[in-house]
């Protein structure tokens, strides 16, 4: 399920007549099974881009193709699109509404064509993937759960359709470090099983250590894209980290200011560690 984004634009008009261009001519390709991160300052259009890829908004220019087919073309199977693409928005626990956890998670499968027992099996699988004991949780009210449990139930609801593409909008914002780790771990597993993951995040470490490719948005434009490491290095070189740099990169800058210069290819903590070891062992590269 490759995603091709061609000259994608999205603009709208305010009541005063003023035109706002949320996205301008975005072009890129996301390969099947990739783990892509999207980063950029607030207001750069990241959420809008996710909404467009999920087919929740129509572009005002350009097109989005899934496996070569334009998703906004007349006759494209919208029902199928909903099953194939799963979106987890910010604070997904806000979407919960049903009387039992089982019913909420099963919601997305209503038009899937699966039989009742198949649906129950899927719901069980989704909840167990999110770390729940199915029998214990299935009849509880989703609204009465704790914050963390709610979030996991909401994500289970999206997983239940077994989407081939999963979109996450700031999934770890506001989570404690343990939950963050847990989530990234789970996403990696899903990705390894073949699901394409696109994750919007402000967390540089999460992006640096887990994603394979990065898209950098600013003011609606795609200002950089490519393999994660290279993008971080270029961002630092060209914009001195204005669009985001990892803690390891910041430390490298600080050390350089104090006359300890490490190679520019330091992006993650591991890079930092090996560079420091090299420095301490014999001083200087090579």
């Amino acid at each position, binding site marked *: 399920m490759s995603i091709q984004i061609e000259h994608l634009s999205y603009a709208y008009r305010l*009541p*005063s007549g003023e035109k706002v261009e949320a996205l301008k001519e975005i072009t890129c390709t996301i390969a099947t099974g990739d783990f892509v991160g999207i980063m950029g300052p607030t207001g750069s259009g990241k959420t809008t881009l996710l909404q467009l890829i999920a087919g929740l908004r129509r572009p005002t220019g350009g097109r989005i193709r899934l496996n070569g087919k334009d998703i906004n073309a007349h006759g494209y199977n919208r029902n199928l699109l909903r099953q194939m693409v799963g*979106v987890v928005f910010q604070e997904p626990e806000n*979407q919960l509404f049903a009387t039992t956890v089982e019913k909420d998670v099963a919601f997305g499968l*209503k038009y899937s064509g699966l039989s009742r027992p198949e649906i129950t099996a899927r719901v069980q699988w989704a909840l167990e993937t999110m770390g729940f004991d199915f029998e214990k949780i299935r009849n509880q009210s989703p*609204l009465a759960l704790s914050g963390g449990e709610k979030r996991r139930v909401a994500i289970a609801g999206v997983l239940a359709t077994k989407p081939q593409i999963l979109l996450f909008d700031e999934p770890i914002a506001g989570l404690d470090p343990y939950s963050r780790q847990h989530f990234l771990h789970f996403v990696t597993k899903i990705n390894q099983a073949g699901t394409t993951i696109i994750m919007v995040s402000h967390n540089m470490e999460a992006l640096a250590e887990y994603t394979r490719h990065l898209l950098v948005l600013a003011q609606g434009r795609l200002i950089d894209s490519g393999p994660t490491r290279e993008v971080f290095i270029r961002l630092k070189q060209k914009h001195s980290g204005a669009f985001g740099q990892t803690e390891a990169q910041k430390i490298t800058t600080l050390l350089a200011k104090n006359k300890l210069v490490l190679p520019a290819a330091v992006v993650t903590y591991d890079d930092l560690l090996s560079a420091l070891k090299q420095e301490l062992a014999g001083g200087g590269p090579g």
Partner: protein
Amino acid sequence: MRMLPTGEYIPGHSFLHRLDARVKLPCFFILMAAVIGAASLWGYVLVVAVIAVLILLSGLPLPAAVASVRRIYGFLLVIFLMNALFFGGEDVLASWGIVQLSRGGMEQGFRVVGNVVLILVLGNLLTMTTLPTQVTAALASLIKPLKFIGVPTEEVAMILSIAIQFIPTLMEETELIKMAQIARGARFESRKLPERAASFIPLVVPVFISAFRRAEELALAMEARGYRNAQNRTRRKKEPLALRDYGALTVCTLICLVQFLLRRC
């Protein structure tokens, strides 16, 4: 489409923009009465002329001022037909069973549709030249006299201003929830009424839950900061009305009076 916290407001510096909202609201209702009171051709000429002048005074482009009229075009047609065909007035032109096309009905149809359109345009002129916060401040001022019959006007004013401040957040949340549920395959169709109603549950329940959650947080914060009742809140000093405000109020009242005098003729 995205709604700003300013609703339909279009920024500007026209005469209408500069009028105090405390005068614009009553003037609107006075002019609305003038429209409803139009009973003859001259009566309508008067109100149409007044509205034309107001559109000029607002600095708004004509398409903007009449935009919402185009949107309800179908609705207006239905109203006209209902009056024309079912009025049962004199001068029947044709009839098929209970359906009677009458001249009286058509006149009535034009009148009703005309009233709706004119009031709509008046309403647009009001909403496009007044910020929502100005509207609530004006409402709060205007209900002050009700204090004498025991209405807790300060509390009402506070509730209104909190409501206004919540609107942009509620708007955003609702949009997000709608999209999230559509992304999960929610559909809001269905033949059978109960099913149709139930299909809105995934939209309505989360919206209310998140709205009430924010409300609860605010209430707790207010109580924690020693809030007890609305009377003790510090208030901003009210600006006095300007000459143009008094002028506008007088002119509108005169127009209304003229309209009712015209009815006598």
